[in-house]
């Protein structure tokens, strides 16, 4: 049976039924970073704590990647199967704007200020058949 492995440890809580993005907050100045880092870019302090950044945010800017990137891009796609994807920065309640792939891939589906929901999705399969999981944001479904 295949496992679902995070693409990188420490980016999000996993496995989890309600995954959260993870970052770090400076003990000295309270500024937040993503991904988590041991030192603070704002004040230079070396004391930071891992914090949950939340699973919902607001779209701050966006674009659509229409061509397949060269390496280091590493998905299961080929030039023939590549599908454009959205990319944006999502403003998180944890106090930082996080760059992320977005589910919508058409301009009319994206708008600055729209609420976005975190999802953890299979991105590619590794040589032993495990699913490599990454994070993505999609528009919050209308109630």
């Amino acid at each position, binding site marked *: 049976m295949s496992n679902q492995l995070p*693409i*990188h440890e420490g*980016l999000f809580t996993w496995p989890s039924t309600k995954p959260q993005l993870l*970052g770090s907050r400076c003990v000295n100045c309270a*500024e*937040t*970073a*993503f*991904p988590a880092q041991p030192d603070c*870019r*704002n004040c230079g302090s070396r004391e930071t704590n891992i914090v949950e950044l939340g699973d919902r945010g607001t779209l*701050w*800017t*966006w*674009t*659509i*990647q*229409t*061509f397949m*990137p*060269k*390496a*280091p*891009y*590493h*998905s299961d796609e080929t030039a023939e199967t590549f599908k454009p*994807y959205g*990319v*944006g*920065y999502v*403003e998180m309640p944890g*106090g*930082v*704007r*996080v*760059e*992320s*792939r977005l589910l919508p891939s058409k*301009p009319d589906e994206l708008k*600055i200020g729209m609420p976005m929901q975190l999802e953890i999705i299979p*991105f590619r399969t590794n040589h032993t058949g495990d699913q490599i999981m*990454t994070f993505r944001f999609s528009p919050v479904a209308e109630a």
Partner: protein
Amino acid sequence: MDVAIIGIGLHRFGRSPDMSGMQQGASAVRAALADAGLSWSDMQFAYGGSQDAGNADTLVNELGLTGLQFTNIWNGCATGGSSLHAAYSAIKSGEYDVGVVVGFDKHPRGAFNPKPADWGIDEWYGETGMMLTTQFFALKTQRYMHEHGITEESLIRVSEKAFKNGSLTPTAWRQQALSYDEIANSAMISDPLRKFMFCSPAEGGAALIICNADKAHLYSSKPLFLKTAVVRTRHYGSFEVFAPSQAMKVADAPTVTASKAAFELAGIGPEDIDVMQLQDTDSGTEIIHMAENGFCEHGEQEKLLREGATDINGSMPINTDGGCLANGEPVGASGLRQVYEICVQLRGEGGARQVPNNPKVGYTHVYGAPGLSGVNIISK
């Protein structure tokens, strides 16, 4: 001690399939030496750099093993600006009287594909398709348009002007003017930026001979003066390329701090500049850089572009040789190409693209990963 520019040389940007990047750098140095009426053996020092075409100091194999001090500089898109800054400091310090600054490159076709580890980022960021300069410029432009009421019309006008200027520039790579509609209907690459709104990685070389200004007239009847050469990096809170996250706090971009420092050191202001080169990796970025360099207010660009203010005959001519859009971007050479073009304009040698009314002061600006800017001010 003041610093003069007494020779300028360019190896035409674009594609030179039969030449290595290094040979294009040597070609530019030879052209600059000929322009100054000097020989390679007269050079006391050299600073140079390239991203993909090898170590600049290997140029001595082409130009001659004269034993000079040759220092390699690598600073992303600001490589040329940083080389010029180093040379400026070498002259200012009084250590040397005359030397050369050179940049060259030869990139493969298609978008740049940097390695995350070179920029202190883990592999997942590149693997999942977020480490692209094209994407960053689109994201920054999208937000800027939203905040400052800039429309697609302005993006198109910047490209229209660039290719028109390219068509007037014998050394430009892209010499065909494009119509407003051709640009407006070109393929969307990274929303809101279309195919004809992006520059391409390319090849080429550029070189400058600089000297102690007190001795400039020994070498040249038409010296120009490098008033300031400034390089600045980002502050916490500015929105930069290759950033998995951004702070909520907002700080001035490195372009703003470099520009302010340059004006302060030169003792002049944006209103004193007659002709300028602003980094135009894409048309959105040229628009942003107009304001970040202090030449207009944020949001004012829409009106200025509609009025043709940035055209060769306008009140603030920008990228008179077509900029990166029409010349492509060989990273190591690009910043020096900007200085070359400003020197051409200040000498009055621009031919069909010459800015009228005898321009006296010029300005160059580059921006590069991971958030640095270089600004030079050059005067008659």
